[in-house]
C-alpha cells in the first residue's frame, strides 16, 4: 500500500473501515488514529485530537473525522473521497439488508451476535476516548476538562456543544 498516492491510501483505508464500523465511526476512530498517526505520520496525536474536536463541534453525523483526515491529506478532493469511501460500503450493506429484512428479522443468531457485539462496541468507544485524551491532555488542566466532558455526557442531558464552547471560552479567558 506504500507505493500508492496518499489520496488512494486514504480511499482504501476508509473503504475497509466502512465495513468494520459496527457501532459507528467512533468505534473505528482508534484504527483511523493508528494508521494516520502511528503508521503513516500524516499528523501528530495532538493534531488528530484537534481534528476530532472540529468534527465533534460540527453538527452532523460522527463520520466527519474521516472527512477531515481526507482534507488534511489531500484537500477538498480528499475530503470528498474520504467521506464517500467511509459511508459507501456500509450504505450498500444497509441498503441490501433493509431490503431483505423480513427474511431474517427474528432469527435467534441475530440476538446472540447483537448481545456479543455490544460490549465490544463499548470497549472500542472507550478506546477512542482514551486515545484522543492521550493526544490532547498535555497537563492536568486538560485532564480536568476531559473528566468534565465525560461526566457531562454521562450524567446530564445537556447538549455537548455547550461543553466545547465553555472549554474554548475558559481557555481564552486564561482560566484553563
Amino acid at each position, binding site marked *: 500500500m506504500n507505493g500508492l498516492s496518499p489520496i488512494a491510501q486514504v480511499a482504501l483505508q476508509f473503504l475497509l473501515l466502512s465495513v*468494520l464500523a459496527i457501532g459507528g465511526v467512533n468505534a473505528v476512530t482508534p484504527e483511523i488514529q493508528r494508521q494516520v498517526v502511528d503508521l503513516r505520520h500524516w499528523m501528530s496525536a495532538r493534531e488528530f485530537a484537534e481534528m476530532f474536536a472540529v468534527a465533534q463541534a460540527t453538527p452532523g453525523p460522527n463520520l466527519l473525522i474521516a472527512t477531515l483526515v481526507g482534507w488534511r491529506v489531500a484537500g477538498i478532493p480528499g475530503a470528498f473521497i474520504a467521506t464517500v469511501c467511509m459511508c459507501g460500503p456500509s450504505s450498500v450493506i*444497509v441498503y441490501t439488508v433493509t431490503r431483505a429484512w423480513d427474511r431474517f428479522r427474528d432469527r435467534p443468531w441475530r440476538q446472540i451476535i447483537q448481545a456479543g457485539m455490544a460490549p465490544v462496541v463499548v470497549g472500542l468507544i472507550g478506546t477512542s476516548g482514551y486515545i484522543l485524551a492521550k493526544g490532547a491532555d498535555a497537563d492536568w488542566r486538560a485532564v480536568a476538562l476531559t473528566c468534565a466532558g465525560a461526566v457531562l455526557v454521562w450524567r446530564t442531558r445537556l447538549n455537548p456543544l455547550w461543553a466545547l464552547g465553555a472549554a474554548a471560552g475558559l481557555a481564552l479567558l486564561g482560566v484553563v
Partner: protein
Amino acid sequence: MRLSIPPVSESPRPDPTELDLFLGFLWASVRGFGGVFVMGRRMLVEERKWLTPEEFVELLGVCQFLPGANIVNLSVAVGQRYRGWKGSLAALTGILAAPAAVSVMLAALFMRYAAVPQVAHAMGAVAATAAGLVVGTALKMAEPVFRKDWILALPVALGTLVLAAFLRWPLPWVLLLMAGSGSALAWGRRAR
C-alpha cells in the same frame, strides 16, 4: 423493507420523492446542532411521518447492528424504502452534504489561525473536552450493557479495551477475536 404493521390512522401513507428525501434529511442535519440524531427522529416520526414510532425503533435496531453511523444508515434505509437506490442516494447526500462542508470550513478556519497562541490554547482545551465527550459516551453505553449481563460484558469490554487501546492491535484482528468470543460467550450464557 416491508413491515407488517398496519398504519394506525386512516391518513394515507406518505409518498416522498427523491427531492423530499434530500431536503428532509438536509434540513434535519442543519437543525441538528450537536444532535443530528434527535432531529432526525423528530423529522422522520413526528413531522413528516415517514416512519411510525415502532418502525423507527425497529429500523434503528437494524442500523445499529450494521456498520456505519446510525443516522447515516437510517437515511439509506428510509430512502430505500420509499424510492429505492435513488432515494437512498438522495437521503444520504442530504444528511452528509452540509455537515461535511461545515466541518472542512471550520477546520480550515482553525488551521489558518493555528499559529496564534490563544487559538492553539483554546483548541487544545476543546480537544481535551471532546475526548471527554467520547469517554462519557462509552460510560453511558456501558451502563445498560453491564446491567443486562455483566459476566458477559466485563471480560469482553475489558479485553477489547486492552487489545485496542494498550496493545494497539489492528481493528480487524480485535473485531475477529472479540466479536467471536463475545458471541460465543453470549451463546453459551443463553443456552444455560
